[in-house]
């Protein structure tokens, strides 16, 4: 099963000691998860302040600077994990040093995620985050959105713009992992409760400009109803 592992930074990035501990332990974590065939790919995100939030109202694209939810908590990066069960995903998340100081949210993907064999972090430039609010539209509208979203994904993949994309299971299937005093603490649900929640992601390739990424987000069918957020991955 594939899981999206969200690196959740809670408020301040933490003390120098915490930063040092994270720097020291992230290497072994990457080594272990890669050698076990669990971590497929992952990358750190740029500062949330650089995000663009995209909405489409009455055919007009509205772009605001910054993330859609102005919370202290933010997503600092992500990994895609292949695990045999949630237990394995939790075990891996609890070994990730971010969970010792902040939190990690695990979200199962809704359907089989196609990952290109030769995907490298260099191919990842922008993250497009699709938000919904869980209030169902009419069945007709909903069906239309799903149909349009599939076509959007298909086209984006064909043009080579999107390297990876998929829907997530509903937010009540999320598990948030924190490790405190050596104890693994689990929370049922996402790490931050907002009205609109992450329902899917698309990762755009290395050659995409910010303008192209924003245009892309605006063409995603949910942009007419909910925010779509564009975040840049950090250059490595």
């Amino acid at each position, binding site marked *: *099963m594939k*899981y999206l592992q969200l690196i959740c930074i809670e408020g301040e990035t933490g003390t120098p000691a915490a930063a040092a501990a994270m720097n020291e332990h992230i290497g072994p974590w990457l080594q272990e998860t890669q050698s076990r065939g669990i971590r497929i790919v992952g990358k750190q995100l740029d500062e949330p302040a650089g995000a663009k939030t995209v909405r489409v109202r009455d055919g007009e694209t509205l772009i605001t600077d910054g993330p859609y939810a102005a919370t202290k908590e933010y997503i600092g990066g992500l990994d895609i994990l292949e*695990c*045999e*069960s*949630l*237990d394995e*995903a*939790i075990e891996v998340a609890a070994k990730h040093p971010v969970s010792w100081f902040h939190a990690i949210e*695990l979200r*199962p993907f*809704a359907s089989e995620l196609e990952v290109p064999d030769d995907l490298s972090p260099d191919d990842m430039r922008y993250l497009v985050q699709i938000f919904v609010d869980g209030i169902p539209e009419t069945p007709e509208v909903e069906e239309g959105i799903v149909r349009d979203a599939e076509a959007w994904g298909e086209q984006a993949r064909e043009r080579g713009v999107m390297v990876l994309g998929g829907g997530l*299971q*509903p937010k*009540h*299937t*999320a*598990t948030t992992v924190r490790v405190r005093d050596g104890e*693994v603490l*689990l929370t*049922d*649900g996402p790490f931050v409760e907002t009205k609109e929640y992450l329902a899917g992601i698309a990762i755009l390739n290395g050659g995409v400009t910010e303008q192209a990424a924003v245009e892309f987000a605006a063409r995603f069918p949910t942009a007419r109803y909910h925010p779509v957020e564009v975040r840049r991955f950090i250059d490595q």
Partner: protein
Amino acid sequence: MTAPEAVQAAFRDEWGRIVASLIRRTGDWDLAEEAAQEAFAQALASWPGDGVPRNPGAWLTTVAGNRALDRIRRSARGNELIRQLAEDPLHAAADGQQDDEPPQAIEDDRLRLIFTCCHPALALESRVALTLRALAGLTTAEIARAFLVPEATMAKRLTRAKAKIAAAGIPYRVPPPERLPERTNGVRAVLYLLFNEGYAASSGDLPIRASLCDEAIRLARLLPAEPETQALLALMVLQHSRRDARVDDRGELVTLEDQDRSRWHLDEIAEADTLLSGAGPLAGAGPYRLQAEIAIRHTREPTDWPCIAELYAELEALSPSPVVRLNRAVAVALAGDLDAGLEMVGELVVGDELSNYHLLHATRADLLRRRGDLVAAREAYERALALAPTEAERRFLRRRLVVE
């Protein structure tokens, strides 16, 4: 035993077993519950006329398996599932053959179900609800009444928990050995919470709440018999053995010292005694063992307060809490050192955590009275009265006030 009584007994003994094995075979929680429900409905309809089968469990398992297969055949993804089931004993049972799985595999099913219902990635309230639904067979309406929430809320909670198990990949299994101690601890916590919900019984539907105690005890018996689990079982059995003495004929709460001991279930106390004497040395005992050791000493006369005070000191070292400290203070006082006990209670009165807890003030009043400090005792009683949350508790305190 009449036929309806036999169905009731079978429901108690077999529900969890049947649901657990159907979940393993089909991976579908709703299907498993519905098929099990239909099997019991059919038993109710046919046992009075046909007689109770020689092996009710096997009969119900076969019928539930058939019902599950019927539903699968009617469903869209039926063919695929039936192929998967072709090699499975469920299929054999449906063809009228004997269910020849070894009993151990079936026991394991129930353990799988307990560990899955109590998975820590589910919210605690969902773990409790799911355990009652899937293992104990309580209906959604009954669970909702027990926890004083609307039925729709409880239904949603159960649906979401089951959806998470399926969608998030929570495995249906007994955890591997390295995870077992921690996960068993989690299961014990859910069972004790379940028990205490029933035991508190200050509100809600009384018969349903009493059945929560029965279910918690029954489920604890299913867990592997390790010392801390046996201790939890002993603790619950002991507390439950006083159920008929805790409340008097007018429905008023009766304290331990005032209880009519002839109403205690002595056979249950004897069982707890046996469980505890087989639990090994006290050194390194866990919190349930210490609580059970305290509880069993409360059943003996005269009460060994010095020993109880010592056990509370150990419990406080292991899991410190103001309530444990309060109980320890009482034991210290009744062991003969009234001043030391009152001093500990006094510290709690000025602390923040328990200062508004009515029983803290009632306890202080009681100890003050024993010391002959009658004016201060009365003040403390009045404070307790003002803080008591329910009318039953106020009546209880008022009775004590009158006695003094």
